[in-house]
């Protein structure tokens, strides 16, 4: 479980997060939703400590990140996996080497075992064997996402962060990636946090939903309630697409 308490974060006087508090539960796909520019990525990177927050607490099962020293943060990172919005694979390494990289950094095992683990992870995300030796630039966006997921789960993380996992993907591939994250979360009892602005993902895999508007947490709940909330900003977000307008009509 990750608890965020009264977090503020600003960049050169531009306050992006305003007193955000939220709870992210273990073994669930927790979702942070909101418009582009609302502060989802900043919140996620603050939780991981990639941004230093101005104020507040971030507790990983009771351990407060802002209190930690650099080497303690590094130990914590051993338990963290992250899937970046643009995949962030290392250009100069092959697919297999990308997945082996975190293993080389952290795990004391032999080269043979690392390779085995990397191949296991790549198979788990359904990547074909023939792609293992290719460079990231030689494979499709959907495949890059799979590799990035494999890299994120290589060290069997307790906490998994996914920043807009289906940005830039077609609807069908998006669905597959979403479901993959959902399966992995349940299979390995991970505390997963997913940033998204996609209502389809929310309806597909959202289990504990946090709505951010202009850096403020405006709502937290589950997907059954999301259609019946008395919050203008959330309604605008939820019913932005024609499909969900229809859903609302049918419900009324």
């Amino acid at each position: 479980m990750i608890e965020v308490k009264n977090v503020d974060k600003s960049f050169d006087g531009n306050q992006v997060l305003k007193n955000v508090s939220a709870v992210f539960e273990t073994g669930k796909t927790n979702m942070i939703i909101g418009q582009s520019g609302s502060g989802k990525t900043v919140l996620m990177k603050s939780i991981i400590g990639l941004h230093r927050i101005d104020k507040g607490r971030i507790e990983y099962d009771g351990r407060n990140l802002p209190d930690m020293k650099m080497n303690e943060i590094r130990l914590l990172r051993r338990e963290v996996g992250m899937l970046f919005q643009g995949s962030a694979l290392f250009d100069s390494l092959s697919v297999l080497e990308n997945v082996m990289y975190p293993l080389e950094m952290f795990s004391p095992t032999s080269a043979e075992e690392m390779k085995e683990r990397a191949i296991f992870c790549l198979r788990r995300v359904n990547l074909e064997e023939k792609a293992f030796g290719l460079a990231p630039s030689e494979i499709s966006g959907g495949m890059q996402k799979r590799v990035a997921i494999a890299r994120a789960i290589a060290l069997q993380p307790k906490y998994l962060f996914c920043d807009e996992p289906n940005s830039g993907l077609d609807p069908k591939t998006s669905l597959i990636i979403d479901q993959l994250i959902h399966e992995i979360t349940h299979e390995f009892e991970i505390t997963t946090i997913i940033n998204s602005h996609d209502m389809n993902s929310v309806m597909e895999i959202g289990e504990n939903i946090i709505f951010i508007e202009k850096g403020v947490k405006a709502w937290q709940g589950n997907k059954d309630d999301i259609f019946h909330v008395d919050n203008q900003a959330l309604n605008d977000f939820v019913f932005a697409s024609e499909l969900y307008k229809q859903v609302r009509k049918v419900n009324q």
Partner: protein
Amino acid sequence: MKRVFVLPDRRKMFFRQFPKELEKLGLQSLPIVAIISVFIGFIMTMQTKLNTSNPLLPVYTTGLVTRDTLLLEFSSTILCLILAGKVGSNIASEIGTMRITEQIDALEIMGVNSANYLILPKIVAFVVMMPFLVIFSMGLGLVGGYFVGVLTSILTTGDYLVGIQYAFVPFYVFYSLMKSMIFAFIISSVAAYYGYYSYGGALDVGKASTNAVVNGSILILFFNILITKIMLN
């Protein structure tokens, strides 16, 4: 910035990056250094001779002026200004691209001290390579001057050779090498700084790289005066 200058936690990683950087920042700069040095050596010798046609001046004047200009300023300061363009923009855009594509964040997540891992090998490699580039440039600059004697009738090669050996001050070479190593440090660290702290998109990487070149060059000019005052006074 403090995080750049700590001992690499994985020596293996430093020594994996270091040779690559030696090659990229050092060896790959050789062609441009060679071309510029030969041509500047040539034109400087020609101009010096043509503009000092006073028969009262001794025959060694041209060679001497060419040599000392190369030794004191061209092969260090001017060369570094040129390399600030080539190497500075290379470093800033490479690190900047890694920043905006979140590869730096990815390194951090994996517990890597990204500043140390990405920046230190570049700075060390460039500072180590710089004296070789400078000596290479001095040599080829003098060769360029020699060609004035060979290809034109402005000057005889004999006069030139006497000139470049006349009143040689070895300290000038030392001064030049010291200076260039400081400049190499400035170029690589300024560029790394702008790359590492870029934020935004491809356009911002371009801006970071321009800033790296402009500010690196200004700092070089400023430090040139400072170092010269300290070392030659």
